[in-house]
């Protein structure tokens, strides 16, 4: 009864909080400086500007959008906006009734207002999706769901603040190594408590990540330099290599932590249930667990990494760029990430198994931990 009541309080408070956040983001126009327009009617017609559509097989559409300004000094006034887009919506968006868009007002001192659309107001969708996920997590996991979200949120906030060091001139790889140490220590202890089990997982994670990165460095230094010119969202070309390495380091961290904690919990659990279990038996149990998780975890990385490049790949293929070039020139980065991440998963299995056994069985040799 006590537990049901406690859960109910948790559900209700989370629900009320999320409801509030959603109501806020759906009505927060006055907090923005840029004018926001809610579109009341959208009139879409095939474009008749022949010059634009003659050299193209795609149809171009023109939109006349009528809307109301939701904030700023012009609040409440109607405005007519123009927009055009191609049917595939590759670069330009189409808009419809009910959409809210940011605009910049054209400052030609005429009597009627005119403006250009700069983008859709997406904050409400961000909050809506986040709330849905949090609700799902809390229903399934109760308090632990909340803790998981808090941990992820703190991780990203700390990371974003640490990047200030990079701005101030510290090497990005150094920043990311420090960040990774923090992520490992914090995530594992925050979600699993401070114990020998967690300590074993932390140690295994650090060791596996280091080994994986070492292997990658050796391979990278002994082969043709990768061209980073086509990296997504490239901003600091001089640092591209270091940023790429840092991305791989952080990307592999989650899966390696996952294996390390799974392994050390399992070994710990077997030992607890049967204190007289032999090292050999522990070892073979660990191998079975490793075999079971290996395949599907590599699968996770395959789809997570490679699928991000799908729209780009299709655009490139449509431009008659041969698939071999796409893989080797335009998007080898996703494939490298996948390969290194998988190598990390594989290395983490024996490493965390040995360390977990050392921590449970080698107590006599590791007495300084007491």
């Amino acid at each position: 009864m006590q537990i049901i009541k406690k859960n109910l309080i948790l559900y209700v408070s989370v629900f009320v909080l999320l409801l509030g956040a959603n109501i806020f983001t759906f009505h927060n126009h006055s907090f923005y400086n840029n004018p926001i327009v809610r579109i009341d009617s959208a009139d879409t017609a095939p474009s008749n500007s022949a010059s634009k559509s003659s050299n193209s097989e795609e149809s171009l559409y023109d939109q006349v959008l009528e809307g109301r300004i939701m904030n700023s000094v012009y609040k409440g006034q109607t405005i007519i906006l123009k927009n055009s887009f191609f049917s595939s919506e590759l670069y330009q968006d189409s808009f419809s009734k009910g959409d809210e868009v940011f605009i910049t007002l054209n400052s030609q001192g005429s009597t009627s207002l005119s403006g250009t659309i700069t983008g859709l107001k997406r904050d409400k969708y961000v909050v809506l999706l986040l709330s849905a996920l949090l609700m799902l997590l809390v229903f399934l996991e109760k308090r632990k769901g909340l803790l998981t979200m808090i941990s992820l949120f703190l991780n990203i906030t700390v990371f974003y603040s640490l990047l200030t060091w990079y701005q101030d001139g510290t090497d990005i790889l150094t920043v990311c190594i420090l960040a990774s140490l923090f992520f490992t220590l914090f995530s594992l202890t925050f979600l699993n408590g401070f114990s020998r089990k967690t300590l074993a997982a932390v140690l295994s994670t650090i060791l596996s990540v280091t080994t994986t990165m070492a292997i990658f460095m050796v391979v990278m230094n002994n082969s043709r330099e990768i061209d980073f010119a086509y990296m997504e969202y490239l901003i600091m070309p001089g640092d591209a290599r270091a940023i790429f390495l840092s991305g791989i380091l952080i990307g592999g961290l989650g899966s390696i932590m996952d294996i390390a904690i799974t392994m050390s919990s399992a070994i710990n659990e077997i030992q607890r249930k049967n204190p007289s279990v032999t090292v050999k038996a522990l070892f073979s149990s660990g191998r079975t667990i490793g075999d079971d998780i290996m395949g599907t975890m590599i699968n996770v990385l395959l789809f997570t990494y490679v699928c991000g490049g799908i729209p780009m790949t299709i655009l490139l293929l449509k431009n008659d760029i041969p698939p071999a070039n796409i893989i080797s020139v335009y998007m080898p980065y996703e494939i490298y990430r996948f390969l290194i991440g998988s190598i990390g998963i594989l290395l983490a299995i024996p490493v965390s198994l040995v360390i977990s056994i050392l921590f449970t069985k080698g107590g006599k040799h590791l007495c300084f931990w007491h």
Partner: protein
Amino acid sequence: MLLALVLILVLLILLIGGDKGATSLITLTANCILLSGIIFLIYAGYPPLPTTVAGCIIISAVTLFYPEGISKKSMASFLSVLIVIVLMMASSYIMGGEANIAGFSEEAQLEDEMAGLSTNIRTDMLDVAAAMIIMSLIGAVLDASVSISSSLYEVHQNHPVMGLAELFHSGIRIGRDIIGTTTNTLFFAYLGESLMLIIRFKIEGYSLARIINSKVFFQEFIRILFSGASCILAIPATAYILSVFLTHPRFIQRESR
């Protein structure tokens, strides 16, 4: 370099995984081929959404049925993955349409690689975006679902007398242990992938308001969220279906025949 890494990966799989490693390797290769196949079919003009759903069904079938054949375990996982895919397909399409995630963001449009490319591709980029979201999450859903079904099956083997409700709750409890680590895995994988973008936000001094309203952020965000949500949904789905398979008289009879 690509070749060297592939070689290391294959060697490690065989070394660490043994026989089971060989099976994983075959499944993995099949999935790579299927994934490229789907992308190629979309390029060739097949409608992205049906192609993706069909492709994901084949990927799930290969990943689940190849290693252990058709059993109650793999069947339960297969059915629950199907349910999750259909649910996510519908919601990603609606959400993607509402929030205009189709095509490329302004950040991506300015890149070198975009220069000189014809944009006349006659493919609905919203469909492609929804297809991408579904394909990104299929690996994670399969992982979550397999973990639940194999652990729950072990529980049933050890205590065959458990009823439907008891088994289901046991499945949810196992799910709680899995979901924390799975969200962690996904979170860091996406964080590592988006590192360049995050650095860009930082250096160009994007405000929080500009970040969360931008298309480029939303495109990454929706992938993470849908991957996470689909893993969470897969847990009760798999737990329930497998519990029914293991306790309902009709399915028990079928096995003994």
